[in-house]
């Protein structure tokens, strides 16, 4: 699946992730699935990592609930989540895979391993025959 995210929403993720270092940062993504098969992220939610560590993240459930209600009010579709890897590459860790339980979701990971070259990737994670299968999705940052 091809996914788009505006430069301004990407910048919000990047700045929040930078500010939260050394801890992992996290949040939700919302938007719409176009009839052309392209998934469009139009709003990101910057939520609290209640683990407050550089090794794990857990999204604050109360903030998650508030974000879901905001999406509903704004007729946006929940599309998945995002989190940062302050020190490791942009790929799902074993724990990321284990805790990815929504096969319809897109999972975005921003690596800040090289601060001068942040890398944002999107992944589809699905449980197939008891094994988590990861597929990288095409992610395009649009706009200036």
């Amino acid at each position, binding site marked *: 699946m091809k996914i788009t995210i505006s430069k301004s929403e990407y910048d919000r993720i990047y700045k929040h992730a930078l500010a939260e270092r050394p801890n992992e940062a996290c949040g939700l993504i919302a938007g719409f699935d176009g009839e052309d098969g392209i998934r469009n992220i139009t709003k990101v939610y910057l939520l609290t990592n209640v683990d407050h560590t550089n090794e794990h993240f857990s999204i604050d459930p109360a903030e998650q609930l508030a974000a*879901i209600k905001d999406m509903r009010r704004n007729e946006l579709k929940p599309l998945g989540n995002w989190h940062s890897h302050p020190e490791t590459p942009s790929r799902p860790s074993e724990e990321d895979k284990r*805790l990815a339980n929504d096969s319809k979701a897109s999972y975005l990971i921003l690596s800040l391993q090289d601060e001068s070259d942040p890398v944002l990737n999107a992944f589809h994670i699905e449980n197939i025959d008891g094994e988590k299968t990861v597929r990288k999705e095409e992610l395009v940052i649009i706009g200036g």
Partner: protein
Amino acid sequence: MRITVGGEKRDVDEALTIRKLIEIDKVETPEYVTVSVNEEFISKDVFDSYSLKDGDEVEFLYFMGGGR
């Protein structure tokens, strides 16, 4: 009675428990689901005994987390 689940209104049987609603809705991986009723989070310990009331607003939230 009428309750709201995930923003959608539904007519359900009286005295429906959270556990039964999870079963009816075929919620995937329920061990990773947090349930709120009228914006209050409900302990998993009482899913079997918590009876929903007319007008309740229920949300299923999947735990979202991971690690490096």
